[in-house]
Each structure stands twice: as C-alpha cells, then as structure tokens.
C-alpha cells in the first residue's frame, strides 16, 4: 500500500482542545475482510443482500443480550463531558471522533428503529435511517476507536464508547462487512494457535535461539520450555514476544524471573497467544472460542497456575473475562488467582526477596511508564483497586534508579491510549494511529524535556509495536520504548546455575 499522505501534528507543551472540523477523518478506512477471513468466524463472506434488515435485526439481538448497549444508548444526555477526552478527537479534530459523536452514529439509528420518539419525531431527536452512507460512516469511525475506555471515566453515567464500538463492529461483521486485520488474525489463531501464524516447530526454534542468546551472554542455562507436561506454570504471552523488539527482551526477562524464582513453567503451542481479538470485534462467541484454547492447554499440560505476559487488551480478557468465558478453573491451585499477571508474579518474588537485582545495570536510562489503556481502566493487579498502576511501577523502581511519571492527567485512570489499540494496529490505519498518539507523545516529550527521561516502559504488545512505529513520526527514536521485563532482565543477577527443570523430581508425571 502506498504510504498515506498526511501531516504529523506538531508537538507543543499542551494539547489544546481543537475546534471541530467536520469530516476531517471521513476518508479513513481499512481493508474489508475477504470471505476466507470471515467464514472461519461464522460471519457471511461478503455483504449480504438484505444487509439493512439484517443489521437492524442484529442490533435488536444485541440490545436484548447486552445491558451496557441498551442502557448506554438510552442514557446519554449530551452533556459534552466526554467530547474532549478522546485522543483521536484531540489528534484529528473530527467531531465524529468525540466519544458521543461516535456513539451518535449508532444511536441515531437505534432511536429511529427502536424508540417511540425516533419513530414518530426523527428530526426532533436526531434519529436517522440506516443508509449506505451511515453504514460507511460506521465502518470508518468505529475503526477509529481503540476501545480504550477513557471516555467512560469522565461520563456521568459511565457510558463506555468501547461497548458501542464493539457492538457496531459485530453488526458490521454479521452483515458481511468485517475488518480484514482482526478477522484474518482470528482465523490464524484458530488454524495455527497464534496471531502471527507461527507454527509449533518455528516456535521451538525461536525459543531454543533465546536459550542460546541468554547462555552466550550470562553463561547460565535459562530455559524457555515449550509444551512441557507437568510444569507448574503455563505462561500465555502475546506472540509478538517471540521475536519482535522490544517485546522479546521482555520474554527473556520472564524466563529469568521464573528461573531465579525456582519454579517450573512452560509455554504451549496451541495457546501461544495471549491476545484475544474476539474482543475487538465484539464477538462473545469468537472471544470464547479463543479463550477456550487456554483452558485446554492448561488441562492438557496439567499445570497448576496460569500467568499472562505483558499485553494490555489481553490482560483485560484474561483478568476480567477468562473466568467467565473459559472457567471455572477449579482444577488449578486455589492458592493463586487465575490468571496472574507476570508483573504480579515478579512483584511477589521481589517482595519475598528471591530475586537479586542490580539496579545500576539500568543507570544508562531514565524511565517513565505508559499505563496501557485496558490494563488501567478495565483490570486490576494485586488485591487493591489501583494495583494495576502501582505494581508495574514498583517493579520498575525495583530495577531502575531513575524514574519519573508523566503528567498526572495522562497517567493512571486518565492515561491516553497509545493510538494503536482495539484492532487498529494495521498499516492501512497509519494516519489515525499517528494522530491519535498526539496526547501521549506530548506528555512524553514534556517529561523528556523537564526530567531528562530517556525511555518509556510499557506492558502491552500493542503499545510497544505502535510506539516503535510512531515515535519516529514525532522525531523520537523507536528504541525509546522498552518492555518492563526487559528492565528486569537487565538488572536481574542469575544466581541459580542450573534450571529448575534439571532439579530432581521435576516433571515426574511426564513420560519422556
């Protein structure tokens, strides 16, 4: 695809709330799924003849199945509180990228077909028929939402535009107008086991390569096991961790932590993907099917615990939905939450003193931390609300001497999305990705200028990939984005000379 022509927004000290420019991003669209991407997900291959009726029917179905959808469509008072909260609006000035503007694309149709006022007084209440143009608008603007939930923090009723986007995408897919990027990936997960389509042997090779790298550097045989029956822990991590930079340095870090903690662990070929794109397309059925792989892998390998690697939306599905979709997990060790986040695991070990950490190894860097949207606003870590903010920071501070937060209104629950979440991490959406990164880039630049920050750590595969691509647009360096466990990996001192796998008694119920 030819490189799209657009201007990267200028960074200044503040992100001003822009005046609206109607239609500024109307041209943004992404490739439509082909039949081979649609059909494995049980969606029609192409746009169905009676798409209008089918779409309304699907909307009715979702209204009866999702309280969020129904209540949110009814409750908005158009107070405007959310209008300046979306990074995509701030970066593009397009009023349909204001959360309520985005919702209204769907709400006007809801009102027209499902409410008394909209049926009889459409002009009065801003109701409209579902036309070809409206459908195009849906496709365009519901793929300019990263489902980051920032709007829901500031709405007096907690209206979450992500819920509306998910519903809209499900309606679109169910009339045959799915998004290629997400649906192709989901089809790959069904066929091969991960988003990248990395087959088992390639995965084994990659992990062996990692073991050699670590051995060359540290002269310790840290293992990166695959499909080991009887291991204690099943690690489920985003497939980008297997080779992309800086993700893979994070995976190396998880391995070292497990090694030093003296626990046995394994990856699984069939569940070699933490991300669950079923959420992006709003499809409970697909999300469930993807989640069940984790359950099956845990049963097959006979593990006692499940730990998830660094990934934002994945952690949402894992933390908030896994028990619902693929539970109950009564066959696992009840002493540990299911699932656990790798940061929870590492922080526990740090508190127990099992890890020796040499902070000075990271003295060449000054860090800040990017709260990934879905970790921040849709999950928790640890026992107390807000643990999702503290635990990753605690881990970073335990392995680095130099740390500064970005401005208060851009972190924690107010964090800005990286710009690439929710199924937008595709080259055909580069313009919206770059523009949507504006608020985060502004906050990063400020903390670089004021505090001398050199690197930004993140715990999400999407954030890492997105920043790697987008930082250069803003005149920064792609290597400024790092994994949290990459920092751990650099600071950890490997005292245990043999891997736990070689200790006596390991994997006894394993035949080979």
């Amino acid at each position, binding site marked *: 695809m030819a490189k799209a022509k657009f201007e990267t927004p200028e960074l200044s000290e503040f992100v001003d709330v822009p005046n*609206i420019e109607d239609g500024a991003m109307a041209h943004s669209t992404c490739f439509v799924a082909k039949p081979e991407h649609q059909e494995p997900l049980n969606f029609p291959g192409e746009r169905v003849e009676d798409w209008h009726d089918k779409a309304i029917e699907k909307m009715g179905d979702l209204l*009866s*199945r*999702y*309280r*969020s959808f*129904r*209540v*949110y469509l*009814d*409750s*908005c*008072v*158009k*107070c*405007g*509180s*959310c*209008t*300046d909260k979306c990074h995509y609006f701030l970066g593009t000035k397009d*009023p349909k990228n*204001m959360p*309520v*503007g985005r919702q*209204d694309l769907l709400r006007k149709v809801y009102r027209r077909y499902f409410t*008394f*006022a909209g049926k009889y*007084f459409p002009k*009065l*209440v*801003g109701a409209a028929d579902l036309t070809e143009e409206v459908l195009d608008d849906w496709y365009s603007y519901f793929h300019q939402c990263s489902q980051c*939930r920032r709007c829901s*923090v*500031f*709405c*007096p*009723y*907690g209206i*979450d535009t992500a819920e509306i986007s998910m519903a809209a995408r499900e309606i679109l897919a169910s009339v045959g107008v799915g998004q290629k990027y997400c649906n192709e990936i989901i089809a790959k997960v069904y066929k091969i086991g991960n988003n990248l389509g990395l087959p088992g042997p390639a995965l084994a090779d990659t992990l062996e390569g990692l073991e050699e790298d670590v051995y060359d550097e540290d002269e310790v045989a840290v293992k990166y096991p695959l499909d080991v029956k009887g291991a204690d822990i099943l690690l489920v991590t985003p497939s980008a961790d297997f080779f992309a930079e800086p993700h893979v340095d994070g995976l190396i870090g998880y391995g070292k932590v497990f090694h030093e903690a003296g626990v046995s662990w394994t990856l699984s070929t069939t569940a070699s993907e933490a991300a669950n794109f079923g959420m992006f397309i709003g499809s*409970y059925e697909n999300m*469930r099917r993807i989640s069940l792989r984790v359950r099956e892998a845990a049963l097959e390998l006979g593990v006692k615990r499940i730990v998830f690697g660094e990934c934002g939306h994945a952690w949402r599905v894992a*933390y*908030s*939905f896994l*028990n*619902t979709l693929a539970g*109950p997990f009564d066959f696992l060790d009840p002493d540990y*939450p*299911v*699932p656990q986040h790798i940061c929870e695991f590492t922080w526990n070990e740090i508190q127990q003193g099992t890890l020796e950490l040499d902070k000075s190894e990271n003295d060449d860097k000054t860090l800040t931390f990017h709260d990934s949207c879905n970790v921040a*606003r*849709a*999950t*928790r870590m640890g026992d*107390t*609300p*807000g643990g*999702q*903010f503290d635990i990753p920071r605690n881990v970073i501070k335990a392995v680095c001497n130099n740390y500064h937060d970005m401005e208060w209104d851009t972190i924690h*629950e107010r964090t800005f999305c990286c710009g690439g979440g929710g199924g937008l991490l595709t080259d055909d959406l580069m313009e919206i990705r770059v523009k949507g990164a504006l608020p985060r880039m502004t906050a990063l630049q400020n903390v670089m200028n004021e505090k001398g920050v050199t690197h930004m750590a993140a715990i999400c595969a999407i954030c890492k990939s997105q920043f790697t691509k987008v930082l250069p647009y803003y005149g920064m360096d792609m290597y400024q984005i790092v994994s949290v466990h990459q920092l751990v990996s650099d600071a950890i001192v490997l005292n245990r000379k043999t891997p736990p796998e070689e200790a006596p008694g390991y994997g006894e119920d394993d035949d080979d």
Partner: protein
Amino acid sequence: MSTVYALLFIVATIVLVLGLARKIVQYAKTPAPLKIPTTPAPVTQAGVVMRMFREVVFFESLFKSTKWTWIFSWMFHMGLFVVLARHVRYFVDPVPLPIALIQPFGIYAGFAMVAGLGGLFLRRIFVDRVRYISAPSDYLMLLLLIFIGFSGLMMAFLIHTDVVMVKQFFDGLFTFSGGELPMDFALIMHLTLVVVLMIILPFSKLLHIPGIFFSPSRNQVDNPREKRHLAPWAKKLEES
C-alpha cells in the same frame, strides 16, 4: 377547565409510572454478560454502593471532567431536588418535618436551578463541540425546564398564586372529589409544562435517571477472578 387539568394529571402520572416501570424492568431483565466496571473499581458490594452514591449525589465523574459543566449541572439538579421536595407540601398534610426544614432554602434552590439551566443552555449554544452533538430536543428539554422554573418563581414572587386553593385541588384529585384550580397564567403554564415533562420523561434522555443505576461500568463489583460471572444466554453456549 379544572377537570381537564385533573384528567391531564392522571394521564401524565400513569404514563410516567408505567413508562418508567417498563424501562426499569427492561434494564433489569437484560443481562450484562461480562464484567466491565471502569477500574479502579470497588472490590465489594458496599464499595459499589458508595461509588454510586458519589455519582448520584456529587456527580463525581462529571467533576473529574469539566468544572463548568459540573457547576451548572449540579446547581440545576440540587436545586431541582430541593424544589421537588418542597412541592411535597402541596400534596400531603401535615407537612413532614424534613420538608418543613428545607422550606427556607426553597427560594434559593429555585434560583440556583434556573441559573444552572441557563448556564447549561449557554454552554450548549457556545461550545462548538456541544452544539455539534445537540439535537432540537436537547435545547427544548432545557427550555422546558427553564420555563417550569421561571413560571414557578413568578408565582412565588410576582403573582402570588393562591396556594391553599392549589392544595385543595390536588387533595381533590387524590380523593376523586374534585376541586378548583386558580386560573392564573403562571400557574397554568407551570402545570402544563410539568405535565409535558412527566409524559416525555420515559421516552427521552431523561432515562438517565434509571440508567445510571443500571450502568455496568459503575454498578459492578471488581471481582472477576474471585467469582465467576455468567449470563443465562452465555450459559446456554456452554451446554451446547
């Protein structure tokens, strides 16, 4: 004329009560299949009650957002609340103590309400983002409330409606024994607009009143790992 108003009030009350009840039942019956509280969220039911209390009484989320909107909106709603409470004395006798106690604040509340509504109206006109999202009904809703408040204040300060007579009218309404309304302009306007408001409430964005209590991002406990959450239709998927 008084009979017409008596009938109007009966109809409006029926529409309001049945309309709201229908929506509440609908919300309650629609399952929330997934845990989606906006986090950080309370980890106990008691915590959720507190969160909801802060939202309903202080408009916590709106406060986090835009201070101007919050000020106007809170003035309007709290004003409305006190004014409504004060209206109880037109319908019951003897007047309950709490209602008697807020009596002196009633007038300030009336002004606060209208001022808050005025601020919201100006915001809707002058902030381009809010103008963009406003349909005619959004302006009309504010005007309706402004005129209700305005006519109410007029009766309190300018025209001095015969309150005893109004009370007898509503008494009569409850006992179906009839009664006369004083026929002055402010009162007729006030009552007509209130009837309109009661009728449109269950069909308009005023559904935010029950809506907030059913909003899953605000009313769910953050405990998905500890307790399995399963909607009935999702359970069926497991059985098939």
